[in-house]
């Protein structure tokens, strides 16, 4: 039992550290940044409800919905649709659509002024 206990403690500590990192790196606020291939392509204010498509060409898309200060991918042409299953988020771990290399991250709006386009 003793030889297991050490590892149980190590792995529990690792989980705790990870949970703390998730909490302290969470900069949730009133805006969201949508990135494609790691580059921010669009900034969305979450205080107004809206819906729009991110057009990826070749008929590929992610449909983004903003409602009550939360953001979600409500439809997508990707094969696994994990991004859609995430539902509405207001912070925490970003939505990621791996097949489309698209991420949606809720932020406090700071540090993303350099977002290009629109």
């Amino acid at each position: 039992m003793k030889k297991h206990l050490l590892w149980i403690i190590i792995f529990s500590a690792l989980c705790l550290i990870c949970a703390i990192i998730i909490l302290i790196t969470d900069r949730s606020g009133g805006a969201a940044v949508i990135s494609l291939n790691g580059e921010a392509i669009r900034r969305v204010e979450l205080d107004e409800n809206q819906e729009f498509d991110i057009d990826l060409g070749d008929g590929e898309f992610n449909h983004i919905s903003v409602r009550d200060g939360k953001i979600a991918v409500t439809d997508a042409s990707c094969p696994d649709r994990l991004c859609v299953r995430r539902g509405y988020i207001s912070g925490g771990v970003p939505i990621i659509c791996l097949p489309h290399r698209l991420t949606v991250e809720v932020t406090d709006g700071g540090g993303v002024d350099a977002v290009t386009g629109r």
Partner: protein
Amino acid sequence: MNTKKLTIMALLLAIALTVFVIEAHVPPPVPIPGVKLGLANIVTLAALVLLGRKEALTVLLLRIVLGSVFAGQAVSFLYSISGGLLSFLTMSAALRFLGRERLWVVSVLGAIAHNGGQILAAALLIGPGAAAYLPILLIFAVLTGTFTGLAAQLLTARLGK
């Protein structure tokens, strides 16, 4: 290589492939890419304990290649192979030091390495922002790694040898 070993390897590959394909069709418990139970790793662990490193690596590589053909998309192969190889190296090294009575620890370390490899592949594909997923993936790696590790430990204990 004798016929008995070859037959066991073929059987393990068939089991791993079946488990892998079935798991690919079941929606993952958490809608975050990279989080899954990894049931096929039970077979890799069993092969590592019962047969040896070379045999386990052969079964793993064949399962990843054939698994991508049957159930994967082109992108998922890159994640599978980078995660799978890093995980295998970690597990075969860890097994030497920890032994089979701590196989669940070997499994958790393997799961952590697997997600590390996937994050590396994701960082190459979608940029360094992918590293933000490491903490959440590590938490699930500990949980799923413990589960599959305990399953493999019970399995190898019953199969004896």
